Every structure is written in C-alpha cells, then in structure tokens.
C-alpha cells in the first residue's frame, strides 16, 4: 500500500495554527450576586413583592413613648400586603392589609405583641409600590426613617455612646425568617476592642428580635462601634440610642439608626448643614472592619467642585475606629456640604455621620451609604413644626454630570424644590423643603446619585438616606 503523509501533515499543521489563533482568553462570567443593593429600596414593578424590615422598641421601653410603622402606597392601584410583627419572645402575629393609592397605613407594633419591649415588623408588599418607614417618639426626641429592605450577614454600627450618665444604647437584631440565626458581636470602645462571651454566638431565633444592651456590656464609653458577623442566616441590625442630655457632651436625642450592611471603598453622606452654634457638633465616625491597616480620607463635597477644603487623612489599624471632628475650623463658610469617606488602598470602610444639637437638643445619625441610584423616593411627614427640612442630593461620580429632577408622587409639592438641576461630579445640592403637609417625592437622575433628608425641629433632629428605586442602583466608580 502506498500512502502519502504530506497532505495530512499540512492539514494538521494548518488546523493547529488556526485553533491557536482563534483561541480565546478567559471567559468572564457575570456574577449574579454582584448587583448593588441599597439598604432601602422600593420596587416599582407591579409583579414584584417587596419586604420591608422595621426594627425598634415599643412603648414598653421606658425611653420610648410611641412607635409607628407607616406604609405609604405610591402606586396608582391599591396595594396589598401582609404585616408580621415579632417580638423578643418569639411571638409572631400576621395581618393582611390593603391600602388605596396614596393612602397610609399606620401600624403600632406594640399593640400586636403586647408587653413586648422590642418588636420587629416585616411588611410584605405585593403587587404595588409602597414605602415603609417608622417614626419613634420619646421624651428626648423623635426619629423618623425609612425601614430597610435588606437583610445581611455582616453589619457595622459605627457610632453609639454609653458615656455616663444619661446615655443608653442597644443593638437590635431582627431575624424575620424561619430559621434561627447566630451572630457574633464585637465592639470597639474607648479602650479598644471588646468582646465578651455573651456577645459571641448570639442566637436570634427565627421570627424574633434580640436586643443587645450595649450600655451594660460596654459601659461608659464615649463612642462604641460594633460589628455584627452573622455565622448562620441573615438578620437586620439597627442601633437604638437614647440620650437624655445629662451626659458629658450634653447630647439629647432619640436615634434609631440602621446598621451598615456592607463596607466599601467609597461611602457617602450628603446633606450636612452647620448651625453655627458652639454647642452643636458634627462628626464622622470611620471604622476599619478589615483585618489589615488601611489608609482613608474624609472628603467634603459641596456645591462647588473646587472648594479648597483639605481632606482629613486617617490611618486605621484593623478594627480601629476614628472620630473625625468636623468642627475643627476647616469648614468655616462653606455652606451645606456632604461627606465622602474613601480609602486610598482599596480596602473597605464603614462610616457614619452624626450631628448633635447641644442646647436645643437633637441627635441625628446617618450611616454612610455605598450605593447610589438613579431614582430615589423621599417620604416626608408633616413639617409644620420643623425649623429646617433639607433634601440633599450628591453626585458621587468622578466624572459626568447628573441631571436630577424632583417629582411629587403623593401630596403637595414643597414650593422651594427645584424641578430640575444639574450636578457636577463630586458635588451636592440641598433643597430647603420648608413647612408643609406630608408628601412623597421622587428624585430622578440621569446618573446615579445619593439622596438624603435631614429634619430639624425645636428639640429634635433626625436624618436618613432616602429610599432608592430598586433596579436603578449602582456602585460609584472607584476614586482615582
């Protein structure tokens, strides 16, 4: 038999070369879990169901007079859902509800679980958009914020105080799900990191609330930061701070701040407004939750890109927390501003901004957020008694202008709100909302922005990040 090898070798060589030439690189797959998610987000898709988690005390707590969870329908059709109230003993009460378009449903958790001191409320909203928030009143002030829609397995509480006398703080862990959760709590007080046996392996039974009294464990600490690592399951974490004004800083107020569910390399808090009074004070608390030393800086964002304010540079060891005093004179005369905390080495950071009003009283703590969005919903309550109500919007982009517009979803529009405004990158804008009846506003933007609300009344203050519109969230680009 005569067989030729030449053609076969030629074809083989050609094929190998072709295969090598067309060889592709590594395939990059989109991770479904990499979608940014705001702490509170409203779903406008009629087919979707949203879960809202509201954690807090009831009137059973001596420092609290009342707590109301409010569901506001913002769709054009009736909104149906179900409210589940659980307490620290494991009781769970479910009720279905239906509210008309633009209607409001008020739920007093204490009435569902009588005798309970703390109660978690899960609001399940089906087939229509609704915003859920809660308001807390007490002898020392009030707090009004949206509830959170996010349950997570790591939380950071950057700021609380147990400084004696007159300050009490709790870390609330709400498990709205069926299975028990187990969490490890770690604290950083004035004398460093603190861990106690009873803060490790804290079991949060399914459908219950656990209130961890920080005052008892980390007593007399001017600043207490906490991290919550959930070993099993997911929980919702909030921090209740009650200060009666008798403490060293004369802080008086009632603050129910949500925890920070994720650390990031860039976090933001828009909407600071200096009062100019000496007793007042603003600060940013930065916590390094990682295991390595990190370098960060606190940058001020104003309406102008070039404002000339020097950032505060920080170097934080693992688990270390630092309080940046905003009243050191750098901010004189710059007007309303926002704050960005960014790390210089790519390591994540958590932060919280607080403002206390010394003489009149009032405490406002806003955990910084890492997620921007192109749509925000702002639920404003009755503002006849307030002195200032400020809606602030920050453009966190490194480059690119964001054009924002404000719409009214329900209620009467505040007169001072500008319908449309352009925001340069790294700037913020504030609108004084003035007095008025309850209103629900929508902030729409051509690029991801961050919206927050700050309200100041005679003897109280409260502030919160607005509710993002689900699906419009985005993570700001890393800084250069």
């Amino acid at each position, binding site marked *: 038999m005569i067989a030729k090898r030449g053609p076969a070798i030629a074809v083989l060589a050609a094929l190998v070369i072709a295969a090598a030439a067309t060889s592709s690189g590594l395939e990059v797959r989109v991770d479904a879990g990499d979608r940014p998610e705001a702490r509170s987000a409203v779903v406008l898709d009629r*087919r979707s169901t949203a879960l809202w988690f509201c954690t807090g005390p009831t009137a059973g707590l001596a420092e609290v007079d009342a707590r109301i969870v409010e569901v506001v329908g913002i769709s054009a059709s009736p909104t149906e859902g179900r409210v589940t109230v659980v307490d620290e003993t494991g009781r769970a009460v479910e009720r279905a509800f239906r509210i008309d378009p633009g209607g409001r449903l008020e739920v007093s958790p204490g009435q569902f679980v009588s005798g309970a001191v703390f109660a978690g409320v*899960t609001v399940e909203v089906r087939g229509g958009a609704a915003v859920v928030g809660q308001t807390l009143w007490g002898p020392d002030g009030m707090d009004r914020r949206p509830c959170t829609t996010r349950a997570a397995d790591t939380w950071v509480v950057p700021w609380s105080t147990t400084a004696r006398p007159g300050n009490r703080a709790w870390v609330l862990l709400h498990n709205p799900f069926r299975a028990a959760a187990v969490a490890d709590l770690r604290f950083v007080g004035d004398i460093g990191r603190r861990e106690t046996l009873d803060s490790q392996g804290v079991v949060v039974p399914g459908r219950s609330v656990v209130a961890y009294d920080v005052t008892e464990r980390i007593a007399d600490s001017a600043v207490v930061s906490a991290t919550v690592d959930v070993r099993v399951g997911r929980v919702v974490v909030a921090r209740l701070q009650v200060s009666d004004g008798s403490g060293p800083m004369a802080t008086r107020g009632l603050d129910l701040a949500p925890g920070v569910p994720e650390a990031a390399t860039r976090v933001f808090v828009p909407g600071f407004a200096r009062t100019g009074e000496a007793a007042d004070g603003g600060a940013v608390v930065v916590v390094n939750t990682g295991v390595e030393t990190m370098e960060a800086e606190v940058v001020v964002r104003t309406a102008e890109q070039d404002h000339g304010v020097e950032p505060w540079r920080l170097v934080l060891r693992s688990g270390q927390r630092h309080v940046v005093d905003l009243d050191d004179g750098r901010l004189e005369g710059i007007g309303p501003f926002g704050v960005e905390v960014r790390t210089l080495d790519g390591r994540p950071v958590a932060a919280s901004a607080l403002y206390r009003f010394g003489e009149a009283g009032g405490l406002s703590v806003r955990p910084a957020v890492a997620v921007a969005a192109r749509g925000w919903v702002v639920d404003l309550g009755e503002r006849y008694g307030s002195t200032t109500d400020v809606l602030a919007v920050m453009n966190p982009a490194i480059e690119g202008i964001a054009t924002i517009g404000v719409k009214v979803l329900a209620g009467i529009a505040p007169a001072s709100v500008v319908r449309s405004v352009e925001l340069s990158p790294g700037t913020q804008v504030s609108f004084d909302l003035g007095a008025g009846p309850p209103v629900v506003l929508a902030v729409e933007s051509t690029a991801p922005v961050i919206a927050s609300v700050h309200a100041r009344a005679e003897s109280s203050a409260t502030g919160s990040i607005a509710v993002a519109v689900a699906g419009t969230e985005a993570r700001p680009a890393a800084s250069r």
Partner: protein
Amino acid sequence: MGTWCGSSVGNTVDAAPPPIGGQPAPRASSALVLAMLVVDDEAPALEAVLAGLLAQDHARIEVLVVDVRLVGDRVGNELGGPPSLMERVGLITPSSLIVRSPGVSGHGPAVATGLRVRAVERTGSPDPQFLLFVPGQVVLGDTAVRRLVERAVEVNAGVVGPKVVGPDGALEETGWRFDPLGSPVPVVPDPEPDQGQRDVDLRPDAVAGAAWMVRADLFAELEGFDPDGVDGTGHLEFCQRARTAGAAVAIVPSAVARRVGVPDSVRHPPTLAWPRFRLRRLMALPLTGLLARVPVLAVATLAGVFYGIGTGRFRHARGLLWAWPWNLRRLGSARRKVKVGTLRPSSAVVGDHRGSWWLALRRVATGRVLAGDDDRSDGLRHLNSAFGAVFGPGGLAIMIAVAVLGFGSRSLIVDGLSPVGRLQRLPDESGDLLAAWWAGWRSTGTGTSGSGPDGLGLVGLLVGIWPYSSDSLWTVLVLGSFAVGAFGIWRLARPVGGGRSRAVAVLVYLAVPIPYEALRTGRLAPLAAYAVMPWLVRRLAGAQAMAPYGLRGGEPGPGTRLRSLWSDVLVTGLALVAVVGVDPVLLVPATVVFVGLVAGTALTGTTDGLFRLMMVVVGGAALAAVVHLPTVLSVSGSDGRGWAGWLGGPIAGGWGATDSIGLEGILSLNAEADGPSAALALFILPAFALVAARGRHLSVVVRAWFVVVGAASLLVMLDREWLGDSGSALRAVDPGVLLVVVAVGLAWASAAGVAGLGSDLAHLAQQVHTGRSVRMVRNGLLGVVVAGLSVGVVPVLAGSLAGDWGTARTDLASVLPGTGGRLVDGQSVRGGVARVLWMGDPTVLPAAGVPLASPGDRSGPWDPLAIAVTDGLPDLSDQWAPGETAGLAELRSALRSALDGATHRLGADFGRWGVANVVVVSRSAPVPGPGIERPVPDRLLEVLARQLDLERVEAVNGALVVYRNTTVEAPFSVVRDRNRRVVPALIERRSMGDLVIEAPADGALRWMVGPDDRWRVRVDGRPATVLASGEAYGVDHRPSVRVATGSVVSLKLDDGWSTGRRRLQLVMVGLLALLASWARTSRDVSLAGGQARVDR
C-alpha cells in the same frame, strides 16, 4: 428383483471358524473377499476403483457391482455413445458380477440385493469370508485388502477399515466415535498431513465409510444393513451393532485408500442425515435409555432449531425438525433392533471430551462436529488465546496495567462507588429501571414521559438477575467500562501489528485521564464513550475494509473478519442501535469518527473503501433509524423537544458540565485542565508515527490522526459556539465524550506507529542523517518515544495509590438531613414521597434537571445553573434530563420570580408541588472529601435566605445549603370543600405506575405528578370524571376528581403507547439481529472454501 449380467469364477478358501456361531477364523491368505460396489450415479471414478481392486496383492477377490440407477445404460447398438456400465466394468474386471436392480433405493437394500443375486448366480461357489464395501470413490492401495484381511484375522476383528487419504495425500478419514447422544464424531475432523499421528487410535467406534471390510458371517449374523437406516450411515450403524454383538472394530493404518477427486472436497454426510441417524439410534435404545435420552435430545433439538433460525442455518433447523417424523414413521423397525442390541454406550472413556454431555448437546444444537482435541468453547479459546498473548511481547505491560487498574480501584471494588454527579446509585425498587423504560415514565422532575436511554432498561434487567446487591452491579458496570474500553482498543489494534502494538494501544488508552476524571466528577457519558468508542471505530474501520482491516490495498491483519457488504450494513446498524441505546449523544462522536476516516483516507491519496464505508454507514444508520423509528419521529419535531431534548441538552451533563475547553484542554485530554499535563506526552508517539510510519501503517496512522482531528475540531467549534449558541443540540455532548474519540485516535495511531517503529525510525534517521550517527538518531528518537509513554502513564500510576482514583467516598445524600427514600412496591405512605428541589451547577447536582435561565437568556447570570426535582433521594433514573415538565416549569417560574424579587414566599410555590426540601449544591461531594467546587452566585443564596417560608437547616455539610419548606403540601392530597385546606391522602404503591389512594376527606383529590395525560383515574372501581384545573368543585392549576371520605382511588399510568413502541423496538432489534446473524453465517459459509477467517 435384481438381474445379473455377468459372472466370475470364485476360488475356494480355507476358512477358519469365525467367533460368531462357533465358526473357525479364516486364514488370511486364502480368504475370499467379495468387494461390493453400488453404482447409483455416473460413477466417474469407477474405473479407478476397479483398477485398485484389480491391483490388489490379495489373490482371492471377487467383485460385485450393483447398479441401482433408475435410468440404465444406452440401449441398442448406437455407436459413439459413452460405454455402458457393463462395458466399463468388464473392461477392467471381466469376471465381476454385475447386478442391475433399478428399483432398489439405498445402499443397504442394494447390498442385500447384490448378495442375494450372487448367492443364486454363484450357487456352489464358495461363500466369501469377507465383504469389502467401497461406497466412496477411493482407490485402495495395492496391499490394502491383504492387510485388512490379515489384520482382521490377527486381532479377530469383525469390521476393519483402512485410513482414507485425499488426492493430495492429506489424511481425511480413519474412523468414528459416538457421543452420548449418538452423534458420530470423526476421529479426523479436518484434512491434515498424514504423519502417522492418528495411527495410535486403532479401535474407534466405527470405521471410515469410504471403504471398509466386514466378516461375511458376522454380516449375515447381524442380518446385514438396517433396511430402514439413514442412507450414507450404514458403516456407522453396522459397526455399532457389530460392537454390541461382541465383534471388534479396528482400523488398519497400513491399509490406505486414496480418494479420487480434488483436494479439500471431502464432505461428511449431509447435515440432514445426522439428526435422523442420531434419533434412530436413540429410538433403538432399551426403554430406560430411551426415556433418559430422548427428552434431552428433544431439548437440544429445540435449542438447535432456534440456533439454526438465529444464525440462518435453516437446513440444520429443518433437519433437526424433520428427523422426528421421519423416525416416528420408522419407530417399529427401530424398536425391533433393540433385540439385537443396536446401541452400546460409547467407547469413550470417562473424562474423554468425546463423552462430554455438554459437547453432545452442542453438537445437536449447532450441527457442528466439534471433533478436535481442543474441547474448549470458542469464547474460552479466544480468552485463552488472549491470555496467552499477554505473555507475548508487551504482555508484561498489559499485566502491569491490569494490576495498576485493580490496585487503583481497590477501595471502589471493596466499598462500592460513592454516588456523585450522574453516577448515582440504582433505585431501591429493583424493577423500576426496567418498568420506567417499558412504560416510558419516570418520577424525575415531578413526573416525565422521557425514560432515558434504552440502556437503562438493560441495567434494570441486569439488576433483576444479578445475585448480589445492586450497588455491586453498578460498581461492576462502571468499572467494567475501563475493561471494556481497553479490550475494545485491543481488538482495534489487533489487525495493525503484534502484541507490542496492542500493548501500547491499551497502555495509551488506559493512561488518558478522561475516565478517571469522569469517575471523579460523576459523568456517565464519557465513561460510556470510553467503553463503546473503540468498538465503534473498529466496526467502521472494518466496514471500510481497507488493509489491515480488509482486503483493500493489502493483506488483512490478524483477527480480521471479512464480511459481505450486506453483513456489514446489518452489523453496523445493530452497532448504531446499541450506541443509541447506551447514550444517544454517542451518535455525535460516531459521526466524527466517520468523517475522520473519510478525511484521513482521502488525505493518504486513495479512495479505497470510501464508497463502501459510506454505503455501510448510510445503510446502518437507516436501519438504526428504523429500529428507533418512534424516537426519530419524536425528535424530528412532533413533540417539540427536538434533538436537544433527546440528547439531553447541555444542562444534563453536556457542555454545561464543564467550563470552556481550549486547545490546552484538548492536548491535556481533560476538559477541566488549567494547563498542560502529562497527557500531552501521549501525543509524542502518534506524532512520530505520522512522520516515520510507512505503508499500511502510515495509512492507519493518518486515519487515526484524522479521527483525532475530527473530534478536536468539533470541540473547538462547539467551544467557540460556531455551530450554534449555548442552546445548540450539539452542546448536549459532554466534551469528555469527544475527548474519548481523541484518545481512541491516539491509541490507534500509537499502535500503528509502534508496529514498525524500529525500522521506521531507522529509515527516518537515514533521511535526516547519514553515517554512524544514524543509529544514534534512531535510538534517540526511540528514547523520546519511550520517555513520552512513560511520562504519560505517570499520572495514572500516581492516581492508583489512593485506591479510589480520587473519587469522593461519601455522597451528598448522606449529609442531607430528613430526606428519605422512595416508595417500593407494597409500601404505603401518607401524602406521598416528599420531593427535593436541587439547584446549582449541573456538574455537581445529583440529578438532571432543566436550566434555570430562560431559553432566550443563556448569557445571563443564571446560565450555568440548573434545577432538578427528585422524589426523595436521587438515583440513577434521575440522571437524564426530564424535559420541560409542568412541575419543573412552575417551580422554575416561581424561582425566577423570587430571583426577580417578585415573591418572598417561595416555599408556598414550591410546596404546592410537594417540595419539602430545597437543596443548593455548591460541591459535588461533602467536605472535606475530594470534590468539585461549583459555588452558586451569592444572589441566589440571598434570595433564598429572604424567603419567609423557607427555613434554613443548620449543621449541614458545607457542600450544601438546605432549606426546609414550612409550607409544603402533600403531593397526593384532598382539598377540602369547606375550608380549602389540603389533607394528605394515604397512598399505596402497587407498582411504579399503579397507585392506590385512600381519600381522607370529602373534596377534590389532586395528584401533583405529571404528565396529566398519562394517568387514568378510577374512584371506587369506576372511571372518574376528571375536573380540569380551575373548574367548579375542583382545584386551581391542577386536574382533580371528586372524592368522599373513604373513597379508594386508583391512579394508573397509561403506558399503552410506550409499551407498543417498546414491543416494536424489540421486534425490530430482534429482526435486525437475526438478519445480521444470517448475513454473517452466509458469508462464513461462502468463504468456507477459501480464507474465511484470517486468524494468525
């Protein structure tokens, strides 16, 4: 009445008294021998035979010719015609007596007539002392008669016979023996050179029939031949009677009869005669013997008839059948022979293979002689041959490979396989696999009509007859794929070269990482391909019939079977039917092999056998399509599933089982390879072979290389999605399956390369170098080849140390809390078996399911994920994609809704279908054992964690995240009219498709098992009216029937269509097998005179 036409003068003899009747034995020199010839045809060798008699040195021979021809010689005195018989005889032996008896039929009556006529015609002449019968056309040696007579006198034998040689001197016949069922067995089965090797066996049961001598007094005493005997078997029958009467039968090797004619044309009596002879002998047995042996013969006859029909030997079957009425008509004459003792047990001593009952049965059933000294079966002889070959060149390497395989599998052999991936355990109810195949229904995915490959039914059948545990059977089947594949490669390489080639081929094939990786990751398709593909390549190479697999372009190699085109088509069709039965996806590599062979052959510069190969493949494919006609009609689009559905789809273990495979993966023969591996060294020898091989070896090497290229090209094209997107039907093929084709090609090329490696490399070296360095270059190249092979096998050697090839030793089910098994027949449970919803990467899921991503969104984040639903724990029946069942579609839709944020009560949606547990799988086996990591997106876990009615079960192994559904409903339940509450019903399983349900409440009974149109419902024995979903008094989204408390509901699977299809399939397979067998047999017969089987 006979007439006589001539006479001769007889001589007197001094007769010694014979042993029979007290007569003295004759003296040899004076004994009168009457030679008798019966002429019943043209007798072309008559003159030669008579001349032989005339030339005898024995003085007293008288010749008697009996002419029994119906049409006699010419009449009148016409001239120029052929001479008459009388003229022919008279010309040579004028003193002969010729008896014309045209009315006589058969040799025995002819002889009797002749003797009677002689007695009348030669009244007064001395009676002959010996009768010499010459039925065959043989020429006796000059001294033959004398020696026969002398021998008869010396040993006092009653019957003596010469040895018969052919025209070329080959020994053809000496004597015969009888087996326990009366089959005659020739001492010399086939012509062989006569070197006196048979001269030691001088006392057989019967002498050769071509020429033999008997004492006349003994012949008279035994009343001559049996008048009702079978024609052509007179010598056998008479010798047997003579021995029974006490006469000796002897062979005289010094007396030689030479057959006249052409060499190798010797034929034993036609096969039609043997069954009659055998049965007549048994009919003449004493009653006890008759009762003992005839039933056995009847059974053997039945088996023989089936065998004859099965192999196309219809004459054999007909002979067996017709022997019975023939003998029953002659039963009286046979029974009369009992008195004279027709039969006597065989002279075969105990332990002699001729006395073997097994061989006796096989002779009856097969009609074969089975006369050689080698009494082993064909299979045993082949096995022994293979075993012997192991000790030949390369045998040690094979033994080491076997030892390594056994050593490396020791834990698996002792402890069994651990279920992982698609390699799940067999069902608890042993008959379920077979029943599922027969009924065309499985419980997978809430109930599906797809039953998986036909091979599952065969596995189910094996489970039924396997004497040990089903786990052990599964272990044998899985590990057996290694041995089957290795043996297939052995067979493929056999015609190429000697033992060294086969050994290298087997070593290369066993050294590829594909089967070990498949075992580790739990992928069935590559294992099936590993076992099947070498055989398929061998089949297609044989179909091409190109040397060394046929006669085209050279001599066929060892073990090559030459077939007709028709036989090749049929056998190829049967092979393709089997391939589809094992796994339909194997059709893809089969096509690749075909294309590779065509391309490879064309590139060698010839078209030899291409047209034949195409004819065979097209014909075989058409036949296979006919056998699988319902499937072909189904996949052609009538049910909407198409090819992708039939092949299983990428999600069931196809391309979804692996990441992108690049050139590195192909060269590493491992789809999971991250970089070059030792398997790359296995390419060295084939590469050298491509450069160095010559002649027919080069032809094989090029064809083998293009089989490799075909598979590799398809891999690359599928990887790049040049042949369709990720939903393409071709992506249902596991990359490992195509890599197996690459491995087969490499092993094949290696075998061809090593066949003439030394000389080929020397030739190559001479081309690149001259002088003394030639040897150095040659040795260097050889060293590279040896080093390459050594490096290639190192991973296997290292892997064998663990004893389990790195497979997991625990399965996911063992760490899954609170999940039970399935119902077995006769078992009852309230509400039905709780279902498990599995989700994760299809590679690590323990059951096949459906993609989580929607068909139009293959590039989305959920693309790699799949969901599967099993009743309780998964088993082997869950390993083939169930398709889009109603339950799976709803469950997937619910999950997608949850992922889109549309619901936070997923448990309620899942629970309606009886899903009690949701298991997210991120690893193929529990930690910390070996396993494949396939983490699911965090988003999935986040969504599941947010469900208000799913409770995560803690303390479960890290490979799983398990959620208990707090709102699960029973799959078989009654929805109360009053409050719409769901009440579980008591369900009893009678068989897989027969359920009995007892209604616990008044309301609507619903069954969450599909497909809806497959179940027939009866309530209290009467056909029930099935309410459509949403109908008044029914339930939403499901069909239901109205029941009252205590009603007994029968739920039966409607399997009419499937069973009809299966019956048709079985008939078609049987018919195809029968045709293939017939075609093969006819080819064997037609080649019997030539080189039918080349088996060096």
